[in-house]
């Protein structure tokens, strides 16, 4: 039951991810990415990472993707005009060949590795309590450093995105 559901969700995830990179309209690419992130949250639930699944929807599909859509609409982007020309097609073909080769290679690596089979998870595994206990004990220092990183990112984003008051190079 869980395995069949996983296969269904995995197939949908791959289709949505292909939509992200194939759709010429950036807004629709972003919406495909939202779908991909939701489906990945479903995969996380199947892997019993309930806390991470909730964070995935709130932080990724909620906050980060809204930021993306906001910027796309702020810049008023149109469809990518597909560049023609033989050199462009050759490069694109090479990129696809390389990407498919990478996928096959990674899949073979996974096949060769012995990752062990997952037993039944302990009670409360992947819930907010279990993750928070680990986060506030073993990972307390990285957690505090993350807050400094976020502060620096907020200040940096505001400084970078504001209108220039001085003439710049370029």
């Amino acid at each position: 039951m869980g395995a069949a559901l996983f296969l269904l969700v995995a197939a949908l995830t791959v289709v949505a991810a292909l939509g992200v990179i194939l759709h010429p309209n950036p807004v629709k690419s972003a919406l495909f990415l939202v779908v991909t992130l939701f489906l990945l949250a479903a995969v996380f639930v199947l892997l019993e990472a309930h806390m991470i699944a909730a964070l995935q929807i709130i932080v990724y599909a909620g906050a980060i993707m809204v930021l993306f859509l906001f910027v796309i609409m702020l810049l008023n982007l149109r469809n990518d005009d597909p560049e023609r020309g033989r050199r462009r097609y050759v490069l694109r073909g090479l990129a696809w060949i390389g990407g498919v080769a990478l996928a096959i290679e990674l899949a073979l690596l996974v096949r060769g590795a012995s990752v062990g089979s997952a037993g039944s998870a302990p009670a409360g595994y992947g819930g907010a309590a279990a993750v928070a206990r680990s986060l506030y004990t073993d990972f307390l220092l990285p957690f505090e450093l993350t807050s400094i990183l976020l502060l620096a990112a907020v200040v940096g984003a505001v400084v970078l995105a504001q209108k220039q008051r001085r003439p710049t190079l370029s």
Partner: protein
Amino acid sequence: MIVPTEWALMLSAVLFAIGVIGVLVRRNVIVIFMAIELMLNAVNLSFVALARARGAVDGQVVVFFVMTVAAAEAAVGLAIIIASFRNRTTVNADELALLRG
């Protein structure tokens, strides 16, 4: 409801490769950025699957940190894209070649 770890890792590998292809074939900086987010998520899936296989939550805590760093990265990256769009009025990666030398 036990999902084989190998299957989750396979899905992660395929999603990562799709992200790599997206970075290589698209020329719109924002779409390239979205493909990078896709790769980050593929790796997150590996972390969650392996944490499940080990029966420990450490991997899930790492995913938490990856998400925070991704949020910071998205904020700064999009600010850079807005700033460069203001100066050059393009988001095409081929035209933003000022550092080519």
